[in-house]
């Protein structure tokens, strides 16, 4: 579904050139959930923005569903670190925003918005304004807004990083359920090993400065998974330790 081939990204700043990504290649299959982890400065968010078409890559090629990325696309949904809700719009109108931009059938869109809000437990909150909701609820609205355009690929940039631990766990379980239901392809950036192990089929580890692909770790544990109580705590523990080691030990950089 997603193909990233030899992608490099170099930012030109006043202080000189900064190499954010070097020769990254990755393939994500249809319906797969891939998490990208790495320490800050490893270019994980940059990689996601490149796939979203929010900025062009310095070199290399990215295709989604066989067509190269030239800019933002309707079949690619993006969820930001912050909810980025329009504060003057009610919950349901925020969810409907993409359908308005794409000029889709209103009645059908409204029905889908209500279904999505029900799915994330926000029924009854349709008419509320964002400032009346908690951070976790706002992020749920943001998730519904990303899903209403029925994207083939959902890109998520540390979507739960601004939330408290319990709300994060809650939303992680929920996201897993949604992904199993819609079988959409997800590329998920996070700095949390726990989140990555819980959610992903594969975890991609990037090493920093410049961002390179260090290793890909397969998570072969049955779904649905949850933190705390499941029969796979030993495997989960081992994977977590392995990922932790990968993140903490520096790799020799050839310059």
């Amino acid at each position, binding site marked *: 579904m997603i193909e990233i081939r030899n992608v490099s990204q170099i930012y030109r700043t006043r202080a000189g050139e900064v190499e954010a990504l070097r020769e990254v290649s990755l393939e994500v299959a249809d319906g797969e959930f891939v998490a990208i982890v790495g320490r800050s400065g490893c270019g994980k968010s940059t990689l996601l923005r490149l796939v979203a078409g929010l900025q062009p890559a310095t070199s290399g090629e990215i295709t989604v569903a066989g067509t190269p990325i030239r800019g933002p696309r309707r079949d690619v949904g993006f969820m930001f670190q912050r909810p980025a809700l329009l504060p003057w719009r009610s919950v349901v109108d925020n969810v409907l925003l993409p359908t308005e931009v794409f000029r889709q059938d209103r009645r059908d869109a409204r029905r889908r918005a209500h279904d999505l809000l029900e799915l994330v437990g926000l029924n009854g909150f349709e008419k509320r304004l964002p400032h*009346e*909701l908690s951070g976790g609820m706002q992020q749920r609205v943001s998730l519904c807004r990303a899903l209403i355009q029925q994207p083939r690929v959902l890109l998520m940039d540390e979507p739960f990083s601004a939330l408290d631990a319990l709300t994060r766990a809650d939303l992680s379980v929920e996201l897993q359920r949604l992904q199993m239901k819609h079988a959409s392809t997800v590329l998920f950036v996070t700095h949390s090993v726990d989140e990555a192990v819980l959610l992903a089929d594969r975890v991609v580890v990037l090493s920093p400065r410049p961002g390179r692909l260090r290793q890909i770790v397969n998570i072969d544990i049955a779904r649905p998974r949850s933190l705390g109580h499941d029969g796979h705590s030993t495997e989960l523990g081992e994977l977590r330790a392995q990922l932790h080691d990968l993140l903490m030990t520096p790799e020799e950089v050839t310059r």
Partner: protein
Amino acid sequence: MTVTETRRTRTDKPRAEGHWTRHLPPVLGVVAVVALWWAITVVFDVESFILPSPLQVAQAMAEQADYLWDNTLVTLSETLLGFGLAIAVGVPLALIVTASRMLERTVYPLLLMLNAVPKVAVAPLLVVWMGFGQFPKVFLVFLVCFFPIVISTAAGLSSTPADLVELGRSLKTNWWQTFRLIRMPAAVPQLFVGLKLAITLAVIGAVIAEFVGATEGLGYAIVASGASADTALAFAAMILLGVLSVVLFYLLAAVERFFVPWADRS
């Protein structure tokens, strides 16, 4: 899955605050000032044509109620017409100015120059150009209000939160969609900052205009009663001006709360 998180309590705060703690301080302030004023007139035995006592002002207000009320309405209508005209011209101009950097560079220095002209000096000229009717007054109000409205609207339009701009980009909105769905509504709180500033200036503008070539309005009433040494009546007119200004300001603040309940909360 059930939603267990509760609403943020911050929105409830103003209501939790008592009725008394909210309205008592401003009332106390007014009472204290009036008491001090009264004390000064009594203790220093001030002549009423220099500083009338609050009681004398209240008497003047009661005796000349009709006269004062008619003039208040005149000043009010000039204020509102000029204010409306400033919105009608200022907001579109802000849109144009923010649409192109070239236009911004062309128009801003002119606006600054226009704003730097002392409005008191313009008032007599306006009479020469436009005669003695209501229009030169309305126009002066317009001149006074125009600048803060343009500046605040332009500032609002060019300071859209970065994450909302990014959201628009990710949805590939065209220029018009970005403007209508994101930039314009995001600018409304800033617009209200300008409007609230402008409405207080508007009343001052109307009064300055009524100082020259006028036959009605609170500004005229002040000049006329001053000329006949009826200081109590002049004070009554000035107090009405103050009240008018305060009422208009809070009305606007109420309109803002109604239309932009989300401002400063996101």
